């Protein structure tokens, strides 16, 4: 039984943490531009090739 309480306890703490961090993530604009990042990965390697 202790195991359930332990797991539920952990998840409550994490749940609260997640909520806060999700607000951070949304606020900081990770999802603002969903076009450019997909293209940018194509141009990462030609720099400085010897």
């Amino acid at each position, binding site marked *: *039984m202790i195991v359930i309480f332990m797991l539920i306890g952990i*998840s409550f703490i994490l749940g609260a943490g997640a909520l806060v*961090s999700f607000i951070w*993530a949304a606020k900081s604009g*990770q999802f603002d531009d969903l076009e450019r990042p*997909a293209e940018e*990965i194509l141009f990462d390697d030609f*720099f*400085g*090739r010897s």
Partner: protein
Amino acid sequence: MANLANAGPEVYDDRAARLFLWATLLWGIVGMSVGALAALQLAFWPANGGISWLTFGRIRPIHTDAMVFAFAGNAVFAGMYYSLQRLCKKRLFSDFLTSLHFWGWQAIIAATAVTLALGMTQGKEYAEMEWPIDLAIAVIWVVMCINVFGTIAKRRVEHLYVAIWFYIASIITIAVLHIVNNLAIPVGAFKSYSIYSGVQDALVQWWYGHNAVGFLLTTPFLGIMYYFLPKAVDKPVYSYRLSILHFWALIFVYIWAGPHHLLYTSLPEWAQSLGMVFSLVLIAPSWGGMINGLLTMRGAWHKVREEPVLKFYVLALTFYGMATLEGPLLSIKSLNLLSHYTDWTIAHVHGGALGWLGGMVFGMAYWLAPKLWNTELYSKKLANMHFWIATIGLLLYVSSMWTAGITQGLMWMATTEEGLLKYPNFLETVLALIPLYWVRMIGGTMYLAGSVLCVYNIYKTAKAGQPVDIEVDTSNDRHVAPRTFHERLEGKAFPLTALALVAVLIGGIVEFVPAFLLETKVPTVTATTPYTPLELQGRDIYIREGCYNCHSQMVRTHHKEELRYGPHSKDYEFLYDFNFQWGSKRTGPDLHRVGKKYPDLWHYRHMLDPRLTSPGSIMPSYPWLFDSKVDTSLLAAKLNGLTKLGVPYKDSVLQDPVAAYNEQADVIVATLAAEGITATNDLEIIAMIAYLQKLGTERAPDEASH
């Protein structure tokens, strides 16, 4: 190279990718070879050479763990370390941690192979390693996490590309799964008992098993796909928005579907139904990924003809789509009743492993090698040949196992007009499959041969080229001012991590609760007694020999099952099964009701050579059980460990376990003596017989009339 990074301009650490790529390919060959040997043994049992560590029960876990942790694992690290640096525009966090990760992981794999061959195993599928190796895995995993999160924290690109999210979700979830599933009490250097027993252990194990497939074999490879596929076709992913949606949907749904591994078992009904529903829902996000991948190749289809890289990606995506449709279908209860425990499951996992995983790994390898050694691929022709051999081998493999699974499933269920089993002799349903086992062996060997071509091709490529340092584009360094703790938290890696973790944990907890509640219900009806010292030693030999790889111990709740094996298994009967042994594949019959079915002598002869009692059997002979004496050195520690876990051993047993042991063993020795067999009470076979005779004999009195 390391000092170069400090002195000159920052360069990517591609040594990491080179090392992990080599490890992937070489361990892949080892793992597949062991798989081919296991396949051969099912068609031709003497292929084990009469050597204990080459028998099916020992090598099958070596094969599966090698494919999961060594082949897939190293491939994930190679792909992740290569792409992560570029996506972050940052050299890997620490050269030291990278080396530690690499060598630590290879040592873990080597130690796993050796200990499993020696029979040191927890007997939990895909988590067979004993506790010292589990600890090492946890440490090395943390090393890797620090390396990955360190790189992400110091990245020069604000936006976290979708691949990184897949990596984060994967490594965090695997850490949680690994730890929760492997919690155990050590009772010896390489022996432990899981802290969970019976139904609970089964639940934790399949929560782990299901999600390990999800988060080690699926999500990281989706991350790899979202990086390497656009690179290979030189086009952005078809819909970036879809990829993000697909990511969250997948990780939120995946974790709930675990109970579909336990349909018709002693698991509560509603948990089974929940697992089934979520499995069906899973089709949507899975196909989202597949469609996104395939559409990324729009306009590049003509390149598929010459380009082996793209061929392998097409193969991978096709089989990903197929396996993710097949999986949910197999979790529909009525279909599962037919398919479960048969070779259909084997077909399903190999569609995933050889098609999806193999396709991604080899596609990535052929694309990476020229980059990593700054040259052209040695031979495209050879790579194309590899593709065709692998594809044909794969199709032979999968179609033979589908046929075998459906054939056997139908034979098990077939009844006559009078309602009797049409094939009451289990062995008959096995012998019907032998030709298909040969086909499977050939298919698998072809796949292996293709992989050898790949190793050769990459080796030649590496020899022709030179490793080269690639400079990091530092022009848009976002780290202008030193950042505060607060700002670092805002780096998004943290929130994403936390989110992924929470999604995983909550899914898991809801599944755990029903099983832990069982604890309180069980003792009132139970007739279950703890395993005696002799039976316990026999059980540990059963685990050592890996009998669970061929035998289930779970009669499902269906009348045709009961017709064949006897009354269905009840949850409380497994109360003291520390490290449950329900199994997942019936190459041999279910053993849960085998106790008292045969006389001791039958087991004695059967274990010596199964063909004495069951002509044509493909079960290995176990002659060493008749020479080796039981190692009782750990007996006291074992009983103490189990007592700590709540097993109510009597004081008299705890005080003198050897006396109790001998007393029971002497009875069996006497029974055998009456039949003209001379054996001593310290032989392993005696303990094994005691264990087998105890199985499933303790149903509660009120149910015995069932």
